[in-house]
């Protein structure tokens, strides 16, 4: 029986983790990234609730352990497709949350539906932990199964469509439920076997659908007359699609003075969000006229570049612009392998084999890694900062947009070269002001005065910032003036800019960009940051969150009846996370206290299990963010960190799970800062990251099982309750980690996690085993 339990806990843990990972991706398509993550974090309430409910129900289940274990495992498997279909059927539209009460009702409904699979799977895991004779082995199987599930999900997402990737989660959970068939007798085995066959048949006959919210870019493009999906590629970077028909034209930064026709274009979408155009070009013809009217063209009027580096060229508009300017050597670094394949494969002819033109070299690589390794210098480095605004999450790690990275980029420019950063203006302007402040800080780190080295041009919607470490000469400043005047663009920052030269063509109330530029260049950035409604302080190595704009003062702007200022996606993301954090706290409080009414004598160890749950997730999420920064590739960092944590912790539990937990919590407190330091200083890419993380994860795996053995003993109800406490605080820790990283940085967040373990150790000093 013990073997069957280990088997089932392994597979059910794997199945539910695969479900969680896959659902995060699927809902990122259906809704938005940040929203999907929050929804699933909250659904993890099921984990804590299961422990609390089991603590109350265990006496009744004690006589029928096999039935209870089979029912929870099978229930978890069944509920995976049902919850998914149910959540889709609700038809939640996140954008409508801004104005519709019914959208909030739908949100609650989706949340309740999604709790189901997590509740049932956690109930199964809790039952095994409560009844097992060796908690250390069972917990190790739980963690190892979760690691396997994480790996299965990563593989499925790399090779299957996201909705199809839900099937491995279903399959793993079903396998777990089959563990007890031999012990269930003939009738039980027949019943269970039939259930498994029926589920497999249903999954085959009615595949799970993939549905996009109607307000996503993709849905709108397809609803248009003759709108059609023309191509699709699946991978860990997301679902990349090309949508057209005769349909799509996109030209951000197009001058109002341009009246020529735009050529045929297609829309390039990732996870349903538009990332840019693919423009038809016949290489026999000169590049299309509209290129000469784009704001990006200005950079080429001032600098005469021999070598240009374009970071994430996407559909190739920037490459085309460089070619139109007569650049001899264009290098592109594309991080999305699906976009790279599409542009080099089926869409190569559409673009006139743009990526294979003489002098053009586009490679598939992580831009940060490429820039760290390439020996080349460039006359122009072009980087767009608008892409991250699509996903909209303030919690996104933006390595390329930190002060340290921009400083490094400036160091890679040839003498006379410039870094060009372009993106949307936003209303009210905030990303554009933050990029200006970041560039100014980067110049200061090189002991250069920003006043002579920055030029910012804008229209009503697009901003272009040029950073030239060598400074703009009076002639170059005059060239920028003339080009801006010719194309109807406004100047907000330029050496020698006069007040009467600003806000002429595209009038903004009070021209906030010019005012921000004045303060930043006068060394009064702090004044600007303090009085702004948004978080405008530059992103840094320890707080690499460029799209984090929300501060509590932002609410004054939103809630002011006169302002009526709608929120941007980035602010919504953070507001949701705060809301989720407080909801998690409330649910944890209720869920933990509820069983105490019935459990007599009351179980011990609430602070211990709470603190290690909180500390574990604070550490894991913070180290994940740090690893994403180190590797630059979330698609690699997530399985690496989650897998290392689960596997190493599983080993820790297996080896030391029956020992008193005190020295392991103290070891964890010490190991965490070392893990952070290792991630920053150890060489060796992903392998080095794994080596930095493994020791901490190993010792952090021991305390939970040790706590069950030495604090709780063999009372099943109390064990289940301890599992619930740990689950609730893990959820609070996961959401709290993101907020702490944003507000304080990675180092304080890791120190806080260490403090949790240290406090757990102090608590154990006063407790007898």
């Amino acid at each position, binding site marked *: 029986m013990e073997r069957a339990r280990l088997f089932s806990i392994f597979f059910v843990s794997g199945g539910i983790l695969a479900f969680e990972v896959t659902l995060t991706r699927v809902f990122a398509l259906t809704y938005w990234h940040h929203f999907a993550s929050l929804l699933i974090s909250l659904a993890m309430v099921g984990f804590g609730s299961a422990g609390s409910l089991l603590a109350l129900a265990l006496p009744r289940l004690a006589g029928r352990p096999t039935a209870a274990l089979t029912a929870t495992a099978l229930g978890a498997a069944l509920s995976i497709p049902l919850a998914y279909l149910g959540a889709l059927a609700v038809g939640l539209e996140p954008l409508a949350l801004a104005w519709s009460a019914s959208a909030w009702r739908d949100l609650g409904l989706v949340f309740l539906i999604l709790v189901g699979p997590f509740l049932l799977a956690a109930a199964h895991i809790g039952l095994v932990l409560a009844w097992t004779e060796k908690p250390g082995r069972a917990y190790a199987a739980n963690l190892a199964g979760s690691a396997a599930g994480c790996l299965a999900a990563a593989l499925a997402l790399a090779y299957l469509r996201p909705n199809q990737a839900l099937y491995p989660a279903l399959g793993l959970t079903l396998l777990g439920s089959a563990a007890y068939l031999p012990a269930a007798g003939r009738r039980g085995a027949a019943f269970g076997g039939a259930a498994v066959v029926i589920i497999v048949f249903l999954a085959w006959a009615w595949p799970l659908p993939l549905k996009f919210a*109607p307000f996503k*870019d993709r849905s*709108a493009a397809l609803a248009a007359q003759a709108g059609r999906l023309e191509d699709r590629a699946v991978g860990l970077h997301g679902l990349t699609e090309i949508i057209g028909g*005769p349909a799509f034209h996109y030209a951000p930064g197009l001058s109002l003075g341009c*009246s020529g026709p735009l050529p045929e274009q297609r829309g390039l979408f990732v996870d349903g969000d538009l990332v840019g155009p693919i423009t038809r070009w016949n290489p026999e013809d000169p590049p299309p006229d509209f290129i000469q009217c784009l704001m990006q063209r200005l950079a080429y009027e001032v600098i005469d570049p021999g070598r240009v580096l374009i970071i994430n060229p996407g559909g190739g508009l920037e490459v085309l612009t460089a070619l139109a300017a007569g650049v001899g050597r264009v290098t592109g670094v594309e991080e999305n392998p699906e976009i790279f394949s599409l542009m080099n494969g089926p869409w190569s002819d559409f673009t006139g084999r743009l990526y294979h033109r003489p002098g053009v070299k586009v490679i598939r690589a992580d831009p940060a890694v490429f820039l760290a390794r390439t020996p080349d210098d460039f006359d122009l480095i072009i980087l767009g900062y608008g892409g991250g*605004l*699509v996903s909209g999450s303030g919690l996104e790690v933006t390595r390329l947009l930190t002060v340290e990275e921009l400083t490094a980029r400036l160091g890679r420019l040839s003498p006379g070269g410039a870094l060009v950063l372009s993106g*949307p203006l936003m209303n009210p302007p905030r990303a554009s002001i933050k990029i200006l402040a970041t560039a100014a800080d980067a110049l200061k780190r090189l002991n250069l005065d920003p006043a002579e080295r920055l030029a910012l041009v804008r229209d009503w*919607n697009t901003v272009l910032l040029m950073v030239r470490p060598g400074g703009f000469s009076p002639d170059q400043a005059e060239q920028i003036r003339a080009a801006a005047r010719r194309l109807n663009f406004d100047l907000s920052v330029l050496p020698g800019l006069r007040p009467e030269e600003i806000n002429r063509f595209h009038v903004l109330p009070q021209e906030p960009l010019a005012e921000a530029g004045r303060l930043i260049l006068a060394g009064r950035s702090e004044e600007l940051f303090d009085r702004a409604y948004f978080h405008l302080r530059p992103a840094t190595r320890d707080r690499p969150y460029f799209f984090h704009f929300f501060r509590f003062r932002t609410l004054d702007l939103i809630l002011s009846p006169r302002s009526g*200022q709608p929120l941007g996606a980035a602010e919504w993301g953070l507001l949701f996370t705060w809301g989720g954090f407080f909801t998690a706290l409330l649910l944890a409080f209720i869920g933990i206290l509820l069983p105490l009414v019935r459990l007599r004598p009351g179980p011990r160890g609430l602070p211990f299990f709470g603190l290690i749950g909180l500390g574990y997730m604070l550490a894991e999420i913070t180290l994940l963010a740090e690893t994403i920064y180190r590797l630059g590739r979330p698609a690699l960092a997530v399985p690496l960190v989650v897998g290392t944590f689960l596997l190493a912790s599983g080993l820790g539990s297996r080896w030391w799970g029956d020992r008193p937990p005190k020295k392991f919590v103290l070891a964890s407190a010490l190991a965490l800062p070392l893990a952070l330091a290792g991630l920053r200083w150890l060489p060796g890419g992903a392998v080095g990251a794994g080596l930095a993380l493994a020791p901490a994860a190993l010792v952090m795996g021991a305390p939970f099982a040790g706590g069950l053995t030495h604090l709780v003993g063999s009372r099943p109800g109390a064990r289940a309750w301890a599992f619930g406490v740990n689950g609730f605080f893990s959820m609070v820790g996961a959401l709290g980690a993101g907020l702490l990283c944003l507000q304080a940085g990675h180092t304080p967040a890791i120190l806080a996690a260490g403090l949790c373990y240290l406090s757990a150790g102090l608590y154990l000093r006063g407790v007898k085993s």
Partner: protein
Amino acid sequence: MKTITAISLALLLLFSLVLAGEEEYRAARFKMVADQIEARGVKDPAVLAAMRQVPRHLFVLEEDLKMAYSDQPLPIGYGQTISQPYIVAYMTEVLALTGQEKVLEIGTGSGYQAAVLAATAKEVYSIEIVPQLYQSSRDLLDRLGCEKIKLKLGDGYFGWPEQAPFDAIIVTCAAGHIPPPLIEQLKVGGKMVIPVGRPWSVQSLVLAEKDDQGQVRTRSLMAVRFVPLMRE
């Protein structure tokens, strides 16, 4: 005789109910104009009269009837919305129409904005790209007898060159940039109001004006959120 009396009574009752319902909507419309539109500073009497006159409840989906006059946009299907009443009034006022203008609307949607424009301008040309919305708005506007409005199924990006130039252009869906053909089709001295920005983001409501030299200047008016402009 009894049957005739019963039928007459039933018809009378039905008629009274319809009238009572219409009266209720009329009251809601007047309240909407007072609380949501005048209170926020829209003053043009012609615009206010149009907003009181056009029965907004006919332009929303049946399940949203109760919210037809509430201070919010509503979905009309196909990822599109009928704009918040205040935004409809504000955008119309910004065009400063005198009743003699030829106006082009991009994005007919439900047809509500076109109906409001028809009450304040001489001619309205409106283009919709979603076939289903084009059909439903055409049916409704025909039923309401809006003869001033000409509808076309097609790509609003290219405007309506056969009918150009226009005194005013109103774009009721967000565009990534201001389409050059629309600038071309705007008369000298004409005004165009357009929300610009990404659909997932907060957009700017921009007023573009063409001066005597044909040069276009823009002014950001306020932050808005519109559905995207779709292209054919």
